[in-house]
């Protein structure tokens, strides 16, 4: 399982670096009234939110690979719960 742990570490690190960069540049652009600020800020937030989701998906794949059906199922349930909160977000989004 050490391989899965290392992959998870890499996914988390990449997510944090990418989102922090996007948020920092987006914030600077916003205060310079430059175009693209909002796009970068939203991209940064979405990358931040996607990082734990990606970590869960990587875990599902890792557990399937070693045929650990119990943990494949458990992590799949966590992914479904995250999807359910995305559905709840859409329901609450009055702009739709």
């Amino acid at each position, binding site marked *: *399982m*050490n391989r*899965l*742990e*290392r992959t*998870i*570490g*890499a996914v*988390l*690190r990449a*997510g*944090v670096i990418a*989102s*922090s960069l996007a*948020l*920092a540049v*987006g*914030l600077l652009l*916003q*205060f310079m009234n430059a175009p693209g*600020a*909002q796009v970068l*800020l*939203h991209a*940064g*937030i979405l990358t*931040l*939110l996607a*990082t*734990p*989701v990606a*970590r*869960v998906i990587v*875990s599902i794949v890792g557990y399937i690979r070693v045929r650990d059906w119990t*943990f494949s199922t*458990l*992590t799949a*349930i*966590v992914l479904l*719960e*995250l999807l*359910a*909160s*995305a559905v*709840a*977000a*859409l*329901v*609450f*989004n*009055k*702009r739709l």
Partner: protein
Amino acid sequence: MPIVTPALAAIIFAAGAVSGGFGALLGIGGGVLLVPFLNLGLHLPFPVAAAISLTTVIATSSSVSAARAGKQLINMRLGMLLEVATAAGSLFGGVTAQMLAQSTVQKVFGVVTAMVAIIMLTRLQRRNVILDPDIDPGPLGGRYHEEESGGMVTYRVKRLPLALAASFVAGNMSSLLGIGGGFIKVPVLNAWCGIPVRAAAATSAFMIGVTATAGAVIYYGTGQLVPALAASAVLGVQLGSWGGMRFGQRASAMWLKLLMAVVLFVVSAVMFTRGIR
């Protein structure tokens, strides 16, 4: 929605740095400090404050766990099992947050921060219990190398239903109040479920990223997550927790915990009275 000025962003960045620093020093999330500052100090609506704080929880969880992955301290199997409960609790809390009045949530926050303070006071001198190194860790237990003692620590997980229940409550509080929820899980996992405090804290920190995401997604959908303010807070918290971990290792945090408990009691009282009015 608040108007995002450079001054407001700078204040939130600084607040993030302070709460992230204290969070790293004390091993609690900075959310219990950041949320009241944003809500009471800057007069942001409670859900806006909670959403900003949740994004900092995700960032902290991801960066701390990235650094620790592969070092055995995080019990990933246990974490992923308990996440089933925290994510469900968080989903439920995020939906409830849309239905409760701000005053109700403030009262809950007041009660919860008082609990954090009490837990902190009762655990001032907490040390690891000596564990038998030859026990079988079982399917959920773990084994890690402890730097202070230089030995291997092996543990079994006991009372799993209790751990799941605590995780559900922690998830619930997380998305409702904009905090990580580690202060609920870590004492329960440590005191009743047989998990050494360092492993419990690392596993909890690993889990709260997923927990907070289930809540933050809902706030994002409702438009209560303001990206520019969240960006300021996330960058501030990362700077603060980096500083806290770098300079705080040698500090015997006891007086700091006492100070923090006093601050939390004050925060609790102010938040609670604000909720009553």
